[in-house]
C-alpha cells in the first residue's frame, strides 16, 4: 500500500496544471466550473469548443491506448489529471459519454473497422455520443427492452423501431449506442444487440423532457424505421447484454473521478456561502458540512481502491457499493446547499424559472438515486452479489 505519487507523476501534475491555467481562460473563462450535473444544458457549444481545445492539447481520452489516439496514461496519471482539471475549474465534459462509455466499449469489443471509424471523432472532440438503454417499460428491469432491430436483407441494414427514454444530451449528439431486441421470441437478456446508430436521420425523433429543474438534458428518442449499418453492431447479434453490462463496468471506473471533482467544486461553493452568510457558525450545519467532506474523501479513497484493484472492477465489493454511496451523498449535498443558503435558497436567478447553480444541483440530485440503477436496485445487487443473499421468489402474473 503506497499513496504517494512518483516524481514523474508529480511532474505530470505540473504539466496538467500549467496547461489548464494557460488554456482555460479568455473565451473559456465563462465556462469555468459550469456544465456539471444539473447544469449540463448550459453552454453546450462553448463546452464542445473546449472539448476540441482539450483534444488539441492531447487531453482527451488520456487513458486510452496510444494506437487509438489516447495518451496511455497510467491510473495514477488519470487520477492526477482529474484532480488538476477540477482544481482549475474545468467545465463538465461534453464528451464524457463518448470518452467514458462508448469509446472503452468499442476498444474492448469493437472490430478494427469500428475502432478506426468511431474512436478518432471522440478523441478529437468532434463527435458526441448518447446512451440508448432505458425505455418506458425497461427502467430498473433494463433487460425488458422492447425496441426491435431487424436485419433488412434488401438494403443490408438494420432497421430499428421503438422508443428510448432518459437519453442525456441526445439533442447534442451525433451517435447513440442502442440496446435493441433482435430475436422477436427472446426474453430478458437473451437475443439483444448493441447498435451504434447515427442520430441525424429521418427515422429518429428527439423530444426533450422538461425536468423538475425546468430545463432539459434528458430526452425521449423515437425510432421509426431508423437505420443502422450492418457493420455497426458491437459484438455478435445476441451478445448485446454482455456488451451493455461491460459498459456499465467502465462507468464505475476512472470516469467517476471526473464526477468527484465536480462534487468537490460544489462542496467548495457551499463552504464559501456558509462562511459568507454566517451559516458556518451553526452547529448543525458544521456537522453536516464535515459529514459531506468526509463522504467525499471516502468516495475518493474507495475509488482509489477500485482502481488499484485492476481489471475486475465490477466484481469487487467496493465497486458494488460505490453508486449507492455517491448518489446518496450527492442528494444530501443538495439539501445541505439549500439549508446553508437559508431564505435566499428560494430566490431564483431570474424569470421565468432560471435557477442558480446550487438550486439546479439540489433539484437535479433527486435523479442521482434513480438513474443508472435506483438505490433500491443497487441494494438488491449489493446484497445478492456481494453478500450472497437469495433472490426474491418470482411472482408470475399470467
Amino acid at each position, binding site marked *: *500500500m*503506497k*499513496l*504517494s*505519487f512518483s516524481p514523474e*507523476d508529480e511532474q505530470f501534475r505540473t504539466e496538467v496544471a500549467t496547461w489548464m491555467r494557460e488554456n482555460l481562460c479568455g473565451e473559456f473563462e465563462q465556462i469555468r466550473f459550469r456544465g456539471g450535473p444539473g447544469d449540463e444544458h448550459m453552454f453546450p457549444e462553448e463546452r464542445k469548443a473546449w472539448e476540441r481545445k482539450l483534444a488539441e492539447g492531447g487531453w482527451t481520452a488520456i487513458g486510452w491506448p496510444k494506437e487509438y489516439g489516447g495518451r496511455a496514461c497510467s*491510473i*495514477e496519471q488519470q*487520477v492526477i489529471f482529474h484532480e488538476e482539471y477540477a482544481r482549475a475549474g474545468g467545465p463538465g465534459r461534453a464528451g464524457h459519454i463518448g470518452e467514458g462509455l462508448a469509446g472503452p466499449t468499442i476498444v474492448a469489443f469493437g472490430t478494427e473497422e469500428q475502432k478506426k471509424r468511431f474512436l478518432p471523432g471522440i478523441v478529437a472532440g468532434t463527435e458526441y455520443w448518447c446512451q440508448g438503454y432505458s425505455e418506458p417499460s425497461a427502467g430498473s428491469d433494463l433487460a425488458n427492452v422492447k425496441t426491435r432491430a431487424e436485419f433488412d436483407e434488401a438494403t443490408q441494414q438494420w432497421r430499428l423501431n421503438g422508443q428510448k427514454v432518459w437519453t442525456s444530451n441526445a439533442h447534442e449528439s451525433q451517435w447513440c449506442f442502442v440496446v435493441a431486441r433482435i430475436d422477436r421470441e427472446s426474453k430478458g437478456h437473451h437475443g439483444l444487440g448493441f447498435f451504434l446508430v447515427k442520430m441525424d436521420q429521418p427515422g429518429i425523433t428527439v423530444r426533450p423532457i422538461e425536468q423538475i429543474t425546468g430545463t432539459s438534458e434528458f430526452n425521449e428518442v423515437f425510432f421509426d424505421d431508423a437505420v443502422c449499418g450492418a457493420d455497426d453492431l458491437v459484438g455478435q447479434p445476441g451478445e448485446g447484454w454482455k456488451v451493455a453490462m461491460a459498459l456499465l463496468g467502465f462507468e464505475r471506473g476512472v470516469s467517476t473521478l471526473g464526477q468527484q471533482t465536480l462534487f468537490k467544486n460544489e462542496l467548495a461553493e457551499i*463552504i464559501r456561502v*456558509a*462562511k459568507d452568510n454566517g451559516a*458556518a457558525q451553526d*452547529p448543525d450545519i*458544521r*456537522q453536516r*458540512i*464535515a*459529514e459531506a*467532506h*468526509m463522504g467525499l*474523501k*471516502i468516495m475518493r*479513497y*474507495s475509488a*482509489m*481502491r477500485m*482502481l*488499484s*484493484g485492476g481489471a475486475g472492477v465490477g466484481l469487487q*465489493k*467496493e465497486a*458494488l*457499493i460505490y453508486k*449507492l*454511496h455517491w448518489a446518496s451523498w450527492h442528494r444530501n449535498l443538495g439539501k445541505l446547499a439549500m439549508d446553508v443558503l437559508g431564505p435566499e435558497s428560494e430566490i431564483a436567478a431570474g424569470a421565468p424559472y432560471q435557477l442558480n447553480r446550487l438550486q439546479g444541483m439540489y433539484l437535479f440530485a433527486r435523479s442521482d438515486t434513480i438513474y443508472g440503477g435506483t438505490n*433500491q436496485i*443497487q*441494494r*438488491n445487487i*449489493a*446484497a*445478492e452479489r*456481494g*453478500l*450472497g*443473499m*437469495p*433472490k*426474491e*421468489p418470482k411472482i408470475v402474473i399470467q
Partner: protein
Amino acid sequence: MEFRFNEEQQMIRDTAAAFLAEVSDSAAIRRAMATEQGYEDAVWARIVGDMYWQALHIPEQYGGLGLGYIELVALFEQMGRYLLCSPFLSTVAFATNALLVAANDEQKNTWLPQIASGELTGTLAYISPGGNNGPQAVQAVCEKTANGYTLNGTLRYVLDGHTAGLLIVAARTKNSSGEQGISLFAVPADTAGVTRNWLPTMDQTRKQAEIVLQNVALPSDALLGSEGAAWPQLQKVLQLAQIAVAAEQMGGAQQALDISVEYTKGRYQFNRPIASFQGIKHKAADMMVKAESARSAAYYAACVAQEALAVAAGGDGDTDLAAELPEAAAIAKAYCSDAFFFNAGSGIQMHGGVGFTWEYDIQLYFKRAKSTETLLGNAVWHREQLAKMLLD
C-alpha cells in the same frame, strides 16, 4: 500509488484472521470478559510469544519487527472482527505510540525492548473525572521538585489501567490551562503513591480502571518529551490511537454484518429464508456500504499514519501525507464509529428476538461499538474538529 495490501500485508492479515478465529471464539471471549483481568493468560502468552504482534511496529533497534502502521492496522481490523480481549490496544496503540512519539533514545531503550519481548504491558492515562476530549481533559497536576517531579490527581477511563505494567501519564503544571503546561511521564505501575481500581464496564470485552496518584515522586528522566509543552505530542499519540480504534471498529462493523447475514440465511419464516426479503436485504446492503466505506477510511488513515511515524522518526516519509494525520484520523474515527454502531444496531434487528439475548454474539458487538465510539472522541466531536479545519 497502490491502494491495496501487498502480498506480505495480505499474509499478515490472513494469518491474524485464522489465529483469532481459533483463540477468540465466542466461548473464549466470554471466558475472558468475565474476569477482572480481562484476558486469558494463555491467549496473551501465544500472542506475545508465538505471533510477536506486540513488537510489530517497534523499530528493530529496540527489539521490534520494524514493520509499519499498515501492517498494524491489518491486525487491529482482525482483532476488532473477533472481539479479541487483550491488553493489545492499550499497550501498542497507546503506550508504544507514546514512547515512539515522545521518548528520547535512552527512554526508548529502557521501555521498548521490554514491551517488544512481551514482559511489559502499558497504557495511557490522560483523562481526569469530568473530562472527555481535547487538552482540557488533562487535569492531573505535576510539580517540579529538586530530584524530578511529583504527580497528583485522579485519572479515569484508563484502558487496562489495573493490569498495565507501565503507565504513560499526562499531567499539567498548576494553574495552566488548554494546550499549555501539559507534560507526559513514564510511570511504572508499582511506583509508590499509585492506586489502581478496576471499573466494571458495560462493554466487558475491554477493561477500564481509575488511577489515583498521591504525591507520586518521579525521577527527572521519567519526563517524556518537552516539559509543559507536550500537547502536540500527546495529540499525535491520540490521533495514531484513533486510527487503531477505527480499524478495530471497521473489523467489528464487517463482522456484525457477516454474522447477521449468516443468521438471516438460516432463519426461515413464511417458508423462505428471511435473507430473501428485500426488507432484510436492503438493510444488509446499507451495512455493506458502511463497512466498505469504513475500510476505505481506515486503510487510508493507516497509510497516512505510516508516513507520519516515518517523518517523526526522521526517516524518509512523505511529508504531505504525514501532514494529513489530524484530518485522516478524524475522518476514520468519525466514520468508523458511526458505521460500527449502525451495523451492530442493525444486526440486532436482523437477528430479531435472539439478537436481544445474552447467548448470541451480536450483543457483544453492539456493546463494543458503543465503548469504542466514546473512546477517543465520538463522531460528533471529530466532525467538529473537521469543521474547524474547513470553516474557521
